[in-house]
């Protein structure tokens, strides 16, 4: 089963009307009516560490993300069809330049301790990430917010440094839950949230137990009585756990043995095509990668189909050297797919004035599962083009602080973003902290700013298409593949036919969206 994001007309309509100053009204999402209530859902997660905390600014792995979506409420969320839906925010409207946004909160929504959710809580929650000495990983995401203030009990006004038509997507980020405010500071320590489940027990790196919050504002979500989420890092142990029925579902199925798991009765292996992609960023300010001909030679020297087949076992699609997934709204489908072509690679090498090329490629499986093997395969296919790749195996430990964003050529992964602008601004914009290719492109940066406030959809599409083309033909990132999310679930579960593709396991919102059959 392959589900691909489709953006509904809700968002399109909103873009047209929202910025014109009209209120975009979204109704609470309706989930499968008549879903069976009850039961204890047991999930085996590949992530979870003893150092995990309840501070949303530190959430980063599959365990903490699913956990926070379970016990916390958010202003908005990404629905299963990829559109934007209101959660604690009932509706929102923008000023004409899309630089001021007014969010109306849902009345009657409460925290687990029974308190009403007010504008003050929202302000405190966002300021947790915005304040000067914030340690939150979401600080760059909220940086464009120059001011946020409460107007009465149920209205919040965001002022942005510049217009952003996609701003209502920002609060869907898992770092940005609404927490109860205590003296102007959010109280994340208590674990009191506004989600469909409340925390009974959290043992970091081991397990989390949650119970359904009976007074949740939306009776359409949260069908299980209780959740047991267990960290099972070892792939063999995770597979055993789901086979022996110790858990009802697992994420990150081991692709090397997935063909055996599929044979197991009572289990279904699900695959959802998503936006997550694996990359080989080249730092464009370091020789020889400062020469686009060298970058092009390397882009033609990699056999993408082979990587999809051997590294992803077919659970994915070939990438086209830009970070926009085939299911995304402004995906440039007419852009020709780049394929393995050693002759073209040689041609570009000659253009660069080189007969042969020898470069180091730093890899570790911390970058993505199978990164070391992918590097070796890349090295083999590059030989035919006269390129010698010296595969440097780096330690997994410390990979993100010592190798990525530092070594001239390495392996990396990106979870992808639903909004094109977010993906580009995060990893390709001039000066962005995570611009791992150190890429500076005048035209690209100009288009990025223009497209953000452009309200004409056709023009916007044109701009994003051009940006994808620029990245494909000049960018520093070699993006060979988009990986699907693969997970296994017991047939006792009623797994929705359409699932979110913005993260694994139905956008990690399985707690509130799934039920027993």
């Amino acid at each position, binding site marked *: 089963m392959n589900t691909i994001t489709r953006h509904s007309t809700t968002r399109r309509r909103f873009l047209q009307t929202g910025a014109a100053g009209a209120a975009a009204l979204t109704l609470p999402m309706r989930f499968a009516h008549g879903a069976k209530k009850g039961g204890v859902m047991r999930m085996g997660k590949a992530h979870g560490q003893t150092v995990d905390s309840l501070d949303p600014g530190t959430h*980063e792995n599959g365990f903490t993300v699913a956990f926070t979506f379970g016990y916390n409420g958010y202003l908005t969320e990404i629905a299963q069809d990829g559109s934007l839906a209101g959660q604690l925010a009932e509706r929102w409207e923008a000023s004409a330049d899309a630089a001021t946004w007014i969010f109306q909160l849902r009345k009657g929504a409460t925290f687990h301790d029974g308190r009403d959710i007010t504008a003050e809580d929202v302000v405190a929650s966002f300021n947790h990430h915005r304040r000067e000495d914030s340690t939150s990983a979401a600080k760059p995401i909220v940086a464009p917010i120059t001011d946020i203030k409460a107007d009465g009990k149920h209205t919040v006004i965001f002022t942005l440094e510049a217009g952003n038509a996609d701003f209502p997507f920002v609060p869907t980020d898992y770092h940005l839950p609404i927490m109860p405010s205590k003296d102007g500071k959010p109280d994340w320590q208590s674990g009191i949230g506004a989600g469909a489940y409340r925390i009974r027990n959290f043992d970091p790196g081991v397990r989390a137990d949650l119970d359904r919050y009976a007074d949740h504002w939306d009776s359409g979500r949260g069908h299980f009585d209780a959740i047991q989420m*267990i960290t099972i890092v070892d792939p063999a142990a995770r597979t*055993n756990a789901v086979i022996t029925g110790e858990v009802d579902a697992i994420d990150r199925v081991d692709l090397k043995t997935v063909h055996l798991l599929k044979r197991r009765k009572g289990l279904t292996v699900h695959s959802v095509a998503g936006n997550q992609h694996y990359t080989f960023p080249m730092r464009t300010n370091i020789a020889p990668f400062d020469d686009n001909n060298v970058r092009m030679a390397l882009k033609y020297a990699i056999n993408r189909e082979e990587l999809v087949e051997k590294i992803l076992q077919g659970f994915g699609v070939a990438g086209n050297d830009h970070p926009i997934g085939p299911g995304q709204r402004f995906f440039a489908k007419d852009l020709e797919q780049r394929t393995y072509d050693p002759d073209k690679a040689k041609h570009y090498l000659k253009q660069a004035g080189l007969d042969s090329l020898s470069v180091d490629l730093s890899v570790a499986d911390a970058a993505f599962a199978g990164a070391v093997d992918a590097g070796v395969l890349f090295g083999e296919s590059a030989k035919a083009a006269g390129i010698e790749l010296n595969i440097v195996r780096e330690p997994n430990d410390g990979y993100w602080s010592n190798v990525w964003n530092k070594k001239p050529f390495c392996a990396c992964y990106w979870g992808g973003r639903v909004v094109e602008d977010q993906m580009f601004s995060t990893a390709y914009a001039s000066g962005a902290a995570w611009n791992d290719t150190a890429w500076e492109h005048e035209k690209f940066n100009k288009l990025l700013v223009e497209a953000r406030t452009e309200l004409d959809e056709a023009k916007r599409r044109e701009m994003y298409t051009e940006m994808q083309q620029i990245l494909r033909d000049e960018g520093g990132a070699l993006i060979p593949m988009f990986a699907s999310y693969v997970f296994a679930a017991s047939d006792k579960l009623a797994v929705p036919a359409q699932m979110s593709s913005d993260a694994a396991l139905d956008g990690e919102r399985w707690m509130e969206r799934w039920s027993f059959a």
Partner: protein
Amino acid sequence: MGVLQLVAKRLGLGAVTLLVVSIIIFGAVELLPGDLAQQILGQAATPETVKAMREELGLDRPAPVRYVEWLGGALQGDFGTSLANKRSVAEQLGPRFTNTLFLAALAAAFSVPISIVLGVLAALYRESVFDRIANVATLTSISSPEFFLGYILILFLSVQNPIFPSISSVSADMPFDERVYVTLLPAITLTLVVIAHMMRMTRAAIIALLASPYIEMARLKGEPRWKVIAVHALPNALAPIINVVALNLAYLITGVVLVEIVFVYPGVGQLLVDSVTKRDFPVVQACCLVFAATYILLNLTADVGAILSNPRLRHPK
């Protein structure tokens, strides 16, 4: 020197050892590339947030200052709080260490009697088929990596024949019998890993004594063979056996991280690995000190046991 004096002296030396260990560990964590702020923020780190986190946690201060501060707290019994999730180290380590001790105790309850009985029997029936089989079987199990043994047990006892759960998710409120049940597979795995060492040492120690004149005398008296071994040889072989048992008990507590991972058992090993990965110094330090103290105490127990079992050591000239 009496036993009490020895214990006091050794405990004093143990405290010095712990201090040295703590300095070495602090230095080792400092030597690791990257610090907690970078590791916690991972791919999402920006220079700004890393700096803010360092300031918040005091990681921007010089290393000796941080060590002395930690030491000051530790001497007063305060092991501090985890830098990563702000929970107190004692609160985190306590339940994990209880789990580890429980698993070690269960494994020891199987492995110690089995290996000593097997060792005595192997010595009794030296060079017999039984001796050969016992040797080959235990050497095979000790030579296999423990995760491999774990997977084999899971395959036969939980996937093909669903007798035991494949993951040992124990929790504090679990009744004792259920806890034993879910912990049984990892305990059996550990038993298989440690049995060979203790059994072979028992056998060797007894056999070494069998050539002594007093054993010959006992035999000439017409004592049955089992009695010669159990009553005459075993008590004198106790010292080396106690030593090897203590060593293996220490291993059961400190060296089981692979088994913990295979069976998803929430013990100290996993906590230590996670904390090292994230450079969470207070937790690393506490785990290592607990491990070091375990070794020191078990070694001390072994020595005291050896002295008590040997009158010559009890009454030195």
